[in-house]
């Protein structure tokens, strides 16, 4: 029966996070506004990059919207870290750690809520993008993009959680956000790999999030294929496992302190 108790605990934490959105709807605005401004701004400014030979899309809005959706997921995940830091500052998280709930279950509750919340900016961006002429990615392309966005939110939430455990203050918020944004933007975010210049091309080639961006993007710029999908899913799983290790280690250390 323990799995049932674990599930109830995860669900309670997800509901608590959802309550925050319902009670303070304004709190969700920055996570939606920033990627939307980025999407519209970058599309307006760099839209004609599609005229470069070798650019694999005729619509920059289609090319960039998955990146903005990932940016929204990164913000949402980082917000989970900031909220956790607030709970730590106020002593609420100490009470959770003192409860008999296993630590992976507590973490699952936090990242589960981030994954669901990331659908808010993703949906908003998708509507805006389609309204200004981005290509419809197809049901399969959309499903893959949303799965990838939720996965990215899980990665960002585990990163934010590990930093919250380490610094135990909301002042670490810029680090939580900047770390994830760096990971997203040092990829093929602005242009295909062959059109990136200098250092960014080298970094994008080894950055695992490049595979994630490409997986989310495929439906918007062409057809969907398993070959384009699985590297992104593997990269997400690897990143989530990596940051989960640090988040759980942080919880163990905090419980000992």
């Amino acid at each position, binding site marked *: 029966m323990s799995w049932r108790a674990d599930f109830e605990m995860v669900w309670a934490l997800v509901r608590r996070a959802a309550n925050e959105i319902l009670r303070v709807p304004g709190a969700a605005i920055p996570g939606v506004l920033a990627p939307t401004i980025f999407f519209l701004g970058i599309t307006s400014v760099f839209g004609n990059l599609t005229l470069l030979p070798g650019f694999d899309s005729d619509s920059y809005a289609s090319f960039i919207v998955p990146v903005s959706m990932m940016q929204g997921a990164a913000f949402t995940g980082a917000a989970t870290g900031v909220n956790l830091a607030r709970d730590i500052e106020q002593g609420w998280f100490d009470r959770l750690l003192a409860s008999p709930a296993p630590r992976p279950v507590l973490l699952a509750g936090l990242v589960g809520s981030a994954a669901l919340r990331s659908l808010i900016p993703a949906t908003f961006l998708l509507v805006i993008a389609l309204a200004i002429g981005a290509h419809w990615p197809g049901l399969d392309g959309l499903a893959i993009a949303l799965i990838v966005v939720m996965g990215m939110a899980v990665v960002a939430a585990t990163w934010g959680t590990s930093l919250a455990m380490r610094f135990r203050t909301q002042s670490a918020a810029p680090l939580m956000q*900047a770390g994830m944004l*760096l990971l997203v933007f040092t990829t093929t975010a602005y242009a295909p790999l062959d059109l990136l*210049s*200098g250092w960014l*091309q080298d970094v994008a080639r080894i950055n695992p999030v490049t595979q994630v961006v490409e997986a989310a993007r495929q439906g918007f710029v062409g057809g969907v294929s398993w070959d384009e999908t699985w590297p992104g899913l593997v990269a997400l799983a690897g990143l989530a496992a990596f940051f989960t290790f640090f988040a759980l280690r942080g919880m163990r250390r905090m419980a000992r302190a």
Partner: protein
Amino acid sequence: MIERLAANARVVGALGRRSIRQTARRPQLAAPLIVFPTLLLAIQTGGAGRAVDLPGFPEVQSFLAFMLAGAMVQSVMLAGNSGGIALAIDLEMGFTDRLFAAPISRFAIVLGRLAGTAALGGLTAVWFLAIGIVFGVTIEGGPLAVVWIVLLVSAAALAFGGIGAAIALRSGKASVVQGLFPIVFVILFLSTAFFPANLMIEPAATVAEYNPLSFIVEGLREPIVAGFNGEDELAAVASVLGIGAVGLTLSAAAMRGRARRGQ
């Protein structure tokens, strides 16, 4: 009269130095000035660097040379915003009220904060010019252009600082000034900070042509990529003066409002 001017100048100097120290000590104030614009510069230069091959793109040594002016204006706009946040924090904590109660000009108190913002703007100009030179950009206008750019960026920081100060004085809340952060990016994207107007997408292209920020950008960019152009520099100075006049007028009105409300 001269004694009073000297006293106010001392106040401006002391508050300006305090403003710089405060920014250096608080990462949340310093990061937007240097870290974010530098990261964005690096990523955009690498990500959109091949844009120089587009037909219609102006003749430049490199995309980095083109982007330096954009990074500088981004930095000064964020400096104005950070200065406003710091002033609002001072208001929330009652520090500014104590200054207002002292026998010194209220205008000198705000000008002290703006002097700090202007000095920080000058430092960011030096930082971005240094980055450009290290990564191979030749400043076509020579040493005089370097001095001119530092002065123009400082003046622009003062002008944008005036807007930030006005909002801080009007609202008295750091969260309100902080909420303007996204608007900074909207204004930047609707200017020629990151791309030439002729290659931007409508309606942003048309807005960029008339955006006063674009005139400041061009006034900074020309000495870097081509050398001095009197018309561009005049337009940049006029834009800085215009924005500065709006900022100082709004600040003065906000101060009068606070005095009327007994704040």
